[in-house]
């Protein structure tokens, strides 16, 4: 599934960063360096970022500007990373967050 906006009458949809690889729950996906982690994940069809503490319900993109924390994931062993305002770096290890998560 590719959800990238490829053609647009108004926007130039080119990416500034190079195409790199990161892993999400062990699976390798391609992403543009510098774009928010969340954007790379959405493009790869990954909509669930975390599961809630008590009811283990899935959560995903909600505000997109770092306010709601629904898109928090474990990034390079660090939990509670708001993926909508954290840029992609080559080789990042990203994991779905369960509850509060202690990372690794």
């Amino acid at each position, binding site marked *: 599934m590719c959800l990238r906006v490829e*053609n*647009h*009458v*108004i926007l130039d949809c080119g990416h500034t960063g190079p195409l790199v690889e990161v892993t999400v729950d062990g699976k390798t996906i391609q992403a543009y360096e510098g774009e928010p982690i969340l954007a790379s994940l959405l493009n790869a069809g990954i909509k669930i970022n975390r599961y809630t503490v008590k009811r283990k319900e899935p959560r995903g993109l909600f505000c997109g500007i770092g306010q709601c924390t629904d898109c928090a994931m474990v990034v390079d062993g660090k939990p509670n990373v708001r993926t909508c305002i954290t840029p992609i770096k080559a080789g990042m290890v990203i994991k779905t967050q369960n509850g509060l998560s202690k990372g690794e």
Partner: protein
Amino acid sequence: MALINTGYLEYEELSAIQKLPDQDRFAKGPVAIIECVQEIPCNPCEAACPVGAIHVGEPITNLPTLHGEKCTGCGMCVSRCPGLAIVIVNKVYSDTTATVSFPFEYFPIPVVGEERNAMNRKGEILCKGKIVKVMNPAAFDHTPVVTVEIPKEFADEVRTIERIR
């Protein structure tokens, strides 16, 4: 107002609010139709017109009015209107056809000679239309203006073409 309950203007509603060109003016060739019917703070159309045919004045919430005799149908206002609410209608394009020039900000932009479905204000397909002109210079700032040729009887209704997905 039907508009705020449906999202589209009926021709009668439009002509009750905006003074539209009369049949004599239509007989002379292309002319602007301003489908702007609410007093919102906006006036770029006034400055866009090279012949001073559009008046907004002060306050800028005034509805724009068109001076039909001055208007040359050049289309400069079409791309400048932030509301995409101005079209150019030429009812004497040929004996049987008219043209409508409208802003079209969807990909793919049609090309001259292409046949596309022509639609009315409600998004209903009325007829086939032939693209006869596409203008997209830098001055239009990414709002291409497309001209579609359609049977004359649809000139007051056709306002866009179907988007290809």
